[in-house]
């Protein structure tokens, strides 16, 4: 008995040890590998195995909580990632600070499959650094059994009527962005008075007890379990939650919202650039992009995949894809026209965001 316990313990320890060791790849040529850092629940994991089998390149996959957390990891210099998948505004910041490598698009032929409207966007105007991964909107998710009538406005996020029933998103850019949109300002404003007004709105709502708390990944559990009525979160994640709680609904409020593109980039000090480009090319392919769109619920930037997804859905699930569901994933043009993308903010505005964000938690 004692021996088996000891054996189990040793086994468990070995597992944790190898688990920890996985992230730190050596640079010797024999073992091909690529270190990827992405977001939680943001890939169909079968794709990782498929890629490893096809190419023999080992994928060390890890996740960060938010763009800001990823940025800290990169600027502390402790991480040795090859591929990261930041959002638009963070990409501009990384380019600005010279942290990204220019891609060799000859190694990424599948880039040609990306729809033209997702190329040469403001974060990478000449498209030298990025290959879009997904895109979507940040809207309101609500539990239709816990609110009075459908929600149509961001005002719900600040409304004392929903006291202790709202989850605010836990990252400064999105939280302040929501308040700015509700106030009718640009999400990219650098006017300190406007940003402070947005902060005041959040702070008052917090002091009025509107928020249960500030959450990121915990939001899934809370909304699925009916523990909160309203939250602001990403469209793709809404579909995951909807599978576990059919009472949930998603809306892009009438004031508009943020729309974002997350794109794959290679870091300048990447030790496995070739492998990184192979990985990016693999994920940009029609098959991988389709599987991903279906699994994670975020829209693909690939023209063909966007067109063919309804047919793929019908074939896979034996029922036609609901148009509403499709439009939540891939927002139609008239919705996107009301939305604004984040641009990189100047350093002093970022510092203001940081100070206000810390103050909000005190």
């Amino acid at each position, binding site marked *: 008995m004692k021996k088996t316990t000891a054996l189990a313990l040793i086994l468990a320890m070995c597992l944790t040890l190898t688990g920890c060791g996985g992230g730190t790849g050596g640079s010797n040529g024999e073992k091909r590998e690529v270190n990827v850092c992405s977001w939680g629940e943001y890939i169909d994991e079968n794709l990782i195995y498929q890629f490893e089998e096809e190419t023999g390149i080992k994928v060390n996959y890890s996740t960060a*909580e*938010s763009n*800001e*957390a990823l*940025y*800290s*990891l990169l*600027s*502390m210099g402790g991480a040795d990632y090859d591929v990261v998948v930041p959002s638009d505004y963070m990409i501009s910041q990384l380019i600005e600070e010279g942290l990204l490598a220019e891609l060799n698009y000859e190694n990424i032929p599948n880039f040609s499959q990306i729809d033209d409207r997702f190329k040469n966007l403001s974060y990478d105007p000449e498209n030298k650094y990025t290959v879009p991964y997904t895109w979507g909107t940040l809207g309101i998710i609500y539990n239709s059994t816990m609110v009075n009538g459908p929600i149509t406005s961001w005002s719900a996020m600040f409304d004392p009527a929903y006291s*202790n029933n709202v989850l605010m998103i*836990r*990252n*400064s*850019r999105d939280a302040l962005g929501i308040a700015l949109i509700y106030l009718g300002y640009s999400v990219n404003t650098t006017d300190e008075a406007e940003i402070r007004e947005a902060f005041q709105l959040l702070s008052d709502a*917090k002091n009025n007890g509107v*928020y*249960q*708390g*500030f*959450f990121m990944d*915990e939001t899934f*559990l*809370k909304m699925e*379990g*009916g*523990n*909160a009525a309203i939250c602001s979160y990403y469209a793709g994640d809404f579909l995951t939650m909807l599978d576990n709680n059919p009472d949930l609904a998603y809306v892009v409020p009438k004031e508009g919202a943020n729309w974002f593109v997350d794109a794959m980039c290679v870091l300048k000090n990447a030790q496995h650039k070739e492998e990184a480009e192979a990985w990016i090319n693999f994920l940009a392919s029609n098959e991988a992009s389709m599987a991903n769109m279906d699994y994670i619920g975020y829209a693909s930037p690939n023209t063909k995949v966007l067109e063919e997804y309804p047919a793929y859905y019908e074939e896979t699930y034996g029922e036609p894809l609901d148009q509403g569901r499709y439009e939540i994933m891939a927002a139609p043009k008239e919705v996107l026209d009301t939305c604004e993308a984040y641009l990189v903010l100047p350093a002093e505005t970022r510092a203001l*965001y*940081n*100070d206000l*964000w*810390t*103050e909000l*938690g*005190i």
Partner: protein
Amino acid sequence: MKRKLSLFAIPYVIWMAIFVVAPVILVVLYAFSSKHGFTLDNFARMGTYAVVFGRSFKLALIATVVCLAIGYPVSCMMSREGPRFQRIAMVLIMLPMWMNFLLRTYSWMAILENNGLLNQLFQKIGLIDLWNQLFGTNLTFFPMMNTQGAVVLGMVYNYLPFMILPIYSVIIKLDPSLLEAARDLGADSVNVFRRVILPLSLPGVLSGVTMVFVPSVSTFAISTMLGGGTRILLGDLIEQQFTGGAYNPYLGAAIALVMMVIVVLCMWVMNHFGEGEEQAVML
């Protein structure tokens, strides 16, 4: 002989130098600098965070007192039982520590939520209806999640073993003949406890208090997960400076340094209460 023994301490000295002394020096260096060199600005901003300091020390103190109130009687009782019982009890106390604390805290979320396991149980057995009738309220659940109470619960749950173990290991080693002697000399059981067991177990209590209070003050994640993150603690504040929206390792180091100084002061004062007794094992 003495010199020979000190040779064996070399690995530990090296370990301390690399993993304790060097990091502390780094923290101090960072705390007194900014991107542009030496500065005291980081400390000038400390006043803004006084509320967070106050909240963290208050919650840590409550958690420590609760741990002591639960842990001391348990240790006493355990030490009086047979060896078989003691072994089983020890395993049960250690068992939760074999699982990752984030997972355990996630489970508490599922238990304490408005729609969680506990509230569903209370609903089923009619406790909530009873409460509503008694107090004229109109609750559909007991709000337990996202409160400071939940944060204290998380701390107590996570750190209780660190209170029980040192107290238990001191009490179990008490010489039974001392207790016999006290009784022979006419002390009743209250007096045996008050004048013999309690003073002799103080070193265990002191190290238990240290081992619960220190990690409680600097705890993070528990307060965002169970407390909602709208009223952050010191650990979260420091973490935010490193990994959150605000990347400012200099300020983070300064906050950590102030916290360390306060904690060391607290421990120093506390150890003076126990003066004359054996000194508590610090750190």
